[in-house]
């Protein structure tokens, strides 16, 4: 074989590799027979192009494009200014009906956003490709989180001030947990959003866990646990303190965090 031919072969090979890479990364999807939907939102909660789309927790596609459409109005005259175009694989198509709901959710520690579609009932019609649908605007989760950060900040303050007097700390923790519970119940009542309620349910469970933890604190293992808490605080320390503070100020939450 001539040298030129071999070079050409290598060139082709590398081209195939690039295409393969693009395919694995999901940039080109030649074999798919996806259908697309336009979901309308007023608040996208940090959704990005390329974020996954899930039905019943299974990944079935991704967000292709997010665009601003300032003048758009739905049939019932509601102004919806964001158009999120999503690709959905064919296999999941049958599960998505006209009564499906389109949520924006948060997954994992890092907080990757994804678009969750609730399965519709079989009675309802299927969508056809390119249809428009109104999505459920997500709750302002960031505010809720910042309040939990405020809680964490208070715990840190407490531990710092009361080093040595474990019982005091426990008492304070107890008080805090109850307060948190109350807040959550209050929030539960005021919130009309169903999804919000689901989140709060979770939060209540968490605070129950905290209560259990404080119960544990009273046992013999108290000192171990205390040491663990301190270690945790030390590990938290290098997290960008000033940046978080700035974030809170922007959100209008007065959190006292003493890093």
């Amino acid at each position: 074989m001539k040298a030129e031919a071999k070079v050409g072969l290598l060139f082709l090979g590398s081209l195939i590799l690039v295409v393969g890479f693009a395919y694995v990364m999901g940039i080109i999807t030649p074999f798919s027979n996806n259908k697309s939907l336009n979901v309308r939102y007023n608040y996208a909660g940090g959704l990005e192009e390329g974020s996954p789309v899930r039905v019943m927790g299974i990944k079935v596609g991704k967000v292709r494009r997010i665009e601003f459409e300032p003048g758009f109005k739905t049939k019932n005259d509601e102004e919806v200014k964001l158009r999120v175009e999503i690709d959905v694989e064919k296999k999941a198509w049958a599960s998505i009906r006209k009564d499906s709901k389109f949520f924006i959710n948060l997954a994992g520690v890092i907080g990757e956003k994804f678009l969750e579609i609730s399965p519709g009932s079989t009675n309802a019609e299927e969508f056809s490709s390119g249809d428009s649908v109104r999505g459920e605007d997500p709750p302002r989760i960031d505010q809720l989180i910042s309040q939990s950060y405020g809680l964490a900040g208070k715990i840190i303050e407490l531990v710092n001030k009361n080093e040595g007097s474990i019982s005091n700390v426990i008492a304070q923790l107890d008080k805090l947990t109850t307060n948190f519970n109350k807040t959550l119940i209050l929030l539960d009542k005021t919130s009309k959003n169903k999804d919000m309620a689901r989140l709060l349910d979770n939060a209540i469970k968490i605070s129950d866990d905290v209560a259990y933890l404080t119960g544990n604190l009273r046992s013999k293992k108290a000192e171990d646990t205390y040491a663990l808490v301190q270690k945790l605080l030390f590990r938290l320390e290098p997290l960008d303190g000033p940046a978080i503070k700035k974030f809170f100020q922007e959100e209008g939450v007065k959190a006292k965090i003493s890093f």
Partner: protein
Amino acid sequence: MFEHFVSFTEMTTHAIFSAFRPPVRIKESFQQLYFVANQSLIIIVFCVCFAAMVTILESSFHMRLVVQNDSMVPGFAAMLILRELGAVVTALLLTSRVGAGIAAEVGLMQTTEQIDALKMLGIDPVQYLVLPRLFACIFGGMILTIVADLVCIYSAMLVSDMYLGFSPAMFISGMRRFVHFKDLIFSVIKGASFGVVIPLVSCHFGFRCKSGAEGVGLATTNSVVTSSIVIIIIDFVLSYLFTHF
């Protein structure tokens, strides 16, 4: 030092201008490309596989140290491979294989007065010798960087499957979160830039080669060292630039 810089710039501008003048040595260029790309392929793939293994091992060590778990190793390793490792390891290997080879070859031509013979025949030695090598190294660098990147990621995937217990699917989904297609493009741009450096530096030292065995040895050594340093500096500049995209 300064004098080197001047004559290097002179040669480079000369090479660039003569690129737009006939004759173009297409056959010779492909011969060189064959030498640069095809014949370095095995050695680069081999080395990059080992580099991938080390990257995975070390990333997992550090992730466990800092975050106490290594769930993000695939993403980070893939990112590191695409942004730095693939292009730089390829370039350094090309420096030693191709760069040193060019310096020795051109240096030998200089000491045996073949370059002067070319001039006597009315052939521009820069156009005759440098351009085909420049072409070959730029394209070879790009192709080899692509191959190295993807082979490296693939072997990283295998290693993390065997050693850390990440299935390939987990690896790919982890990779998707941190790596973008533009990273591969940046990597190829790096490969091409390094490909510019290697033949120019090597030819520069080759042309200035003093006679005798000692001269050839010195020219080869200097070209390897200078290319490596310039590659690292250019890598720094490009990495810095790419963070703005």
